[in-house]
């Protein structure tokens, strides 16, 4: 029988590798055969772990964790026009999703208009097309912003999208105090990995501190930055690099806000984090635990935070897009399940589970439903959320948590020696570290030192791709018409006026948020606002290293 022969072949293949394998996790840390009490004999429970909800929060930021309520199930979504994405949002809410997360198309991410020549082919492709407040009104049409929290993945033009959200709230009769959500607003990791920068680092940092200051005073329930390791990891870093570079970025934001004169206990509790969850199960869990511990210690000891709220590292998790395979894409459902479980056992506050077809296209309704159901099954059926931090005390996990912290500290020292995060970016330190790690990883996959099922082992003879979601080319035409009509119907004189005021303010050192809100309210486009700021701030040009 062909079937049984195949099974036998595969069994032999597995046995062969297990004898030859090096046991190293994705951060290249050697893993021992066995961990015993000796490996953790230096750990002091109160000092290094603490109960959940207690400093240094290694075991979790809240006392009750998921016994109070489950993590927020927040699927990142956006494609086509605002109307299409609004429909996807409603689909997700109808299926039990508890928070929104907006993906914007490339022109919005870079702050250019859909009618710009550079937008050719990109309109509505990787996210939703937003040009003016009008599009944002349609995006949240029929969704009560006082009842749901919204996360927006936007960085260069972050203040503009935040301004739009505030004005959409206004139009729903809500005050800014009632709005809950997160804006990614993390420009440092854009220079390091994700590349959706616009301005040079210094004016970018000003815009970010402006938004922190503004939200501290007016939008108190808003998370002002989602300090992101996700993209650093996707770009090819190891888990340790993700941990270290992300937290280093966090320290840089804290220092910038303190420099502006803000009190750490007034803003630190509105900073949040965003991590990746990759394939190595325990490594990921250790990473989240180490992150909480490092952050709490720094906030308290270095920056003088007094409120426990300021020391709690809260984070969103997304499963690793880069781990998804185009080959036998259904297997990705299993990968995503394991990665999601690591996020939950690591104590995440919210979670996005990738859809199995994302190495091929944007997800279909079917694949998105399975991804959301994966979270719901973990939450409601597996029992892992019944007790807080169930893996604590594992010799291996506690050893690994400490090891991740130690390795991260080595990076913090290196970054400090380079003069801090921004000087290190200018010297391409992070960029080179990540390029080296991703190349090494690829070589290990190519040489089968690392196995990816159905890619470099157990390859299928033939593979049929699933049905994929395509973005209709008509979307571009529709969006161009929407923008065109808006420019004809708005009060162009008022737009001009607000843009002039913004230009003047940008040349000084006032907080720019109120000026941006005024421009947005008059339906100035993101492209127009960014153009004004580019005139004052200039643009960033990166070195193309590889």
């Amino acid at each position, binding site marked *: 029988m062909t079937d049984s022969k195949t099974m036998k072949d595969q069994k032999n293949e597995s046995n062969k590798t297990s004898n030859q394998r090096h046991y190293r996790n994705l951060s290249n840390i050697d893993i021992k055969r066995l961990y015993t009490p000796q490996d953790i004999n230096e750990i002091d429970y109160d000092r290094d772990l603490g109960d959940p909800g207690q400093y240094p929060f290694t075991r979790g930021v809240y006392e009750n964790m998921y016994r109070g309520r489950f993590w927020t199930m927040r699927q990142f979504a956006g494609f086509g026009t605002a109307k299409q994405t609004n429909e996807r949002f409603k689909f997700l809410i109808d299926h039990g999703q508890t928070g929104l997360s907006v993906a914007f198309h*490339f*022109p919005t*991410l*870079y702050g250019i208009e859909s009618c710009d*020549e*550079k*937008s*050719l*082919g*990109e309109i509505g*492709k*990787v996210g939703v097309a937003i040009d003016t407040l009008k599009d944002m009104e349609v995006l949240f049409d029929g969704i009560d912003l006082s009842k749901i929290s919204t996360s927006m993945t936007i960085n260069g033009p972050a203040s503009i999208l935040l301004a739009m959200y505030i004005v959409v709230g206004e139009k729903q009769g809500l005050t800014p105090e009632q709005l809950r959500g997160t804006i990614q607003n993390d420009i440092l990791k854009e220079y390091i990995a*994700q*590349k*959706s920068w616009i301005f040079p680092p210094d004016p970018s940092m000003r815009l970010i501190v402006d938004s922190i200051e503004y939200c501290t005073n007016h939008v108190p329930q808003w998370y002002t930055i989602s300090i992101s390791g996700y993209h650093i990891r*996707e*770009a*090819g870093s190891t888990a340790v690099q993700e941990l270290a570079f992300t937290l280093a970025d966090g320290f840089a934001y804290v220092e910038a806000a303190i420099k502006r004169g803000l009190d750490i206990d007034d803003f630190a509790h509105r900073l949040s984090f965003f991590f990746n969850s990759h394939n190595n199960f325990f490594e990921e869990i250790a990473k989240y635990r180490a992150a909480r511990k490092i952050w709490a210690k720094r906030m308290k000891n270095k920056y003088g935070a007094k409120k426990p709220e300021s020391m709690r590292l809260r984070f969103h998790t997304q499963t690793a897009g*880069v781990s*998804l*395979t*185009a*080959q036998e894409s259904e297997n990705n459902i299993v990968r995503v399940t394991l990665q999601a479980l690591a996020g939950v056992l690591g104590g995440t506050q919210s979670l996005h589970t990738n859809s199995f077809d994302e*190495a*091929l*296209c*944007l997800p279909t309704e079917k694949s998105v439903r399975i991804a959301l159901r994966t979270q719901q099954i973990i939450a409601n059926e597996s029992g892992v959320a019944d007790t807080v931090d169930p893996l604590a005390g594992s010799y291996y996990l506690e050893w690994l948590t400490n090891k991740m912290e130690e390795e991260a500290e080595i990076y913090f020292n290196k970054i400090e020696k380079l003069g801090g995060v921004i000087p290190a970016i200018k010297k391409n330190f992070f960029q080179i570290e990540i*390029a080296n790690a*991703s*190349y090494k990883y*690829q*070589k290990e*996959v*190519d040489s089968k030192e690392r196995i*990816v099922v159905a*890619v*470099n082992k157990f390859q299928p003879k033939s593979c049929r*791709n699933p049905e*994929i979601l*395509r*973005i209709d*080319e008509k979307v571009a035409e529709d969006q161009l018409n929407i923008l065109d009509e808006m420019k004809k119907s708005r009060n162009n004189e008022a737009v001009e006026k607000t843009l002039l005021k913004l230009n003047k303010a940008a040349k000084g050192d006032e907080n720019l948020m109120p000026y941006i809100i005024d421009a947005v309210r008059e339906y100035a486009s993101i492209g127009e606002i960014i153009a004004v700021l580019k005139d004052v701030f200039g643009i960033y040009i*990166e*070195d*193309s*290293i*590889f």
Partner: protein
Amino acid sequence: MSKERKIKVIVAKPGLDGHDRGAKVIARGLRDAGMEVIYTGIHQSPEDILNSIIQEDPDAVLLSILSGAHNALCPKIMEKLKENNINDILIAVGGIIPEEDKEFLEKQGLKGFHGPGTNIKTIVNFVKNNLKR
């Protein structure tokens, strides 16, 4: 081409797509395989790519697109090459290119279409075997 000369390759990221992990890994893999590699960086317009080609005179140009903009951008690039009578260079595109788009792109003169999970050796051999000069 003469035996002594290294194969010269441009790796380029057209459009607004910033996902350059794959492009960088391939650039480095080709360099390690003994080729001369120029990586343009991200945000290359069709005009930018044409200018790089004129300046560098490569044997192959590998375009990396993961954003779904390939059907709009690739024909523009091919048009520019045609206008400038450039026809002895291998032009390939990879990234996330759906199966059903390949025929259209092939008609435009593009090759390759390598996606996620491709190993470096496959790309090296592909370049070597598909040079036009």
